């Protein structure tokens, strides 16, 4: 399993209810179901991935994650997870608020647009940075926004969202191994993973 998904899995307590928004073919859910005995649920828009996931024995609803959250009651999941999708959603604020309505906690991960390589590329070439994590040109990228480590922290603070854990990681794109960045995430985080909540407790 991808390194960032391993880190996300480590944040999930056993025997909980988990919703994975944009779950793909359900690698994370399958792992959580097997290792942590969670009750897993996925939302995915791509038919091929949905079929693969259901074939593996997962509960997955095919649909748009902006819409599919609506039918779930408040607090119906322990965790709502959005991994590496935030940079592609149309209205991230609404999606995160929805996650924290239906989930007691949310786990959000995204490629950080603040890595040293990004900073240097922009500084020296004056061109929109292209990295392993964000490998597209400006004219063909599915990513409609870029997010930095500090951007997300500031967003949480402004919206009264409490950050329970924040983990910066450095890993190759889609690789199964990597390392946790313990110092200067603003310079060295390739991906940020945040465990957040709106609950005051």
């Amino acid at each position, binding site marked *: 399993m991808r390194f960032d998904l391993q880190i996300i899995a480590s944040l999930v307590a056993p025997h909980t209810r988990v919703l994975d928004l944009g779950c793909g073919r359900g690698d994370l859910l399958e792992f959580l179901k097997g290792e942590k005995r969670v009750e897993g*649920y996925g939302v995915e828009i791509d*038919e091929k991935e949905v*079929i693969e996931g*259901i*074939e593996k024995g997962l*509960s*997955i609803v095919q649909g748009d994650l902006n819409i599919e959250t609506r*039918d779930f*009651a408040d607090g*119906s999941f322990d965790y709502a997870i959005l991994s590496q999708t935030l940079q592609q959603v149309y209205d991230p604020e609404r999606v995160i608020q929805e996650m924290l309505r239906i989930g007691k906690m949310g786990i959000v991960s995204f490629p950080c647009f603040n890595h040293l390589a990004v900073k240097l590329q922009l500084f020296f070439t004056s061109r929109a940075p292209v990295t392993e994590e964000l490998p597209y040109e400006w004219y063909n990228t599915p990513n409609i926004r870029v997010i930095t480590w500090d951007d997300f922290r500031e967003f949480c603070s402004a919206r009264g969202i409490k950050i329970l854990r924040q983990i910066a990681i450095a890993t190759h794109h889609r690789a199964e191994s990597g390392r946790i960045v313990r110092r200067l995430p603003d310079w060295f985080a390739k991906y940020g993973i945040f465990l957040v909540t709106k609950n005051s407790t």
Partner: protein
Amino acid sequence: MSEYSGHNESGASVGIVRRETLTFAEPPEEMTLESGQKLGPITLAYETYGTLDREARNAVMVFHALSGNSHVAGCYTESDEKPGWWDNMVGPGKGIDTDRYFVICSNIIGSCYGSTGPASRNLRTGKPYGLSFPLFTIADIVRAQKRLLDHLGIRRLLCLVGGSIGGMQALEWAVDYPEMVFSAIPVASTAKRSALSIGLSEAQRQAIMADPNWRNGDYYGQDPPSKGLALARIIGHITYLSEASMERKFGRKLRENAAFKFDFSPDFQVESYLHHQGRKFVERFDANSYLYITKASDYFDLGEQRGEGSLVQAFSRTRAKFLVISFSSDWLYPTAQSKEMVSAMKKAGRDVSFCEIEVDFGHDSFLLAHEQLTRLVSGFLNRMSQEIAVTSGAAGTEVAHAL
């Protein structure tokens, strides 16, 4: 893009099968239908494949649609060249694997394949029922099936699978007998017949009733209303296709010569194809059955009838896990209607999976060999057989692992 594979030859056939019958509700113990009218005795024709396991936890009930029957898979004799209607899905090693599951399908009441219907003899008069046969609903169909399961000693169903009107039966079952239904797969179905479907249904019924041979349903022993029934089938058949599939198959291709005939005989291939479908159908189906079954499906509105107007409430009564499947080109039971069902199931807190298969064969897609559909059904069934074992205690878990 269509991803149709050919006919599924991967698994062997279930082999030679036999149609059984069960008769119940003998007077004076007739079954009271939703309309308040009584029906009895009732005979149901049914078939079973595979073996019921010791704990009776591997029963899968399959439901046929409007013109189907209990003959889901296999053949009746060695020389029988026409296997059951879902032979590509049901059999050893297939989507619904008869090596693992005990499969049951019964012909619905009102039909004409061995179950009691308008063409059956009314014991009171000694003549075929015709229009004296009472109107029935999907819930009545299901209640009769329940009697069959009681007879077979099956108290729990691992899964219910049905397309179209068969999907309605699966939903009705899940709501009416929640303690018996572990899971259900409604395919290309709906929780409520739409105005469009009712309208198309009515056009088909009118085609039958406008045939002078129909004689108010009293045509048995005489010439049946073949023209009317063929026309009904032609209308129905069009609703099972899609614009894209018809365009691809026929386009504007002409029948014989590359010139118009300038009369009202069929010029286009699509016309002669539909006429052929109509002619073939009248050889095998009873016009009155067509009227009754389409009416039963028109009456179907699960939220209204079982949830006091709320589909969420109706699904709150279920205990089943669901897999809902729709087809992108199905305009008779469009994806939006499946999604409405899924949304209500989610709101009711049910465990539901949903997939829309991208395919351009229209409503009929569920009957065709289709790799995606097979993978979804077999994957879901596999999961259900593991989960039913867990819920039934430790002894069950061992069985699941042994599988």
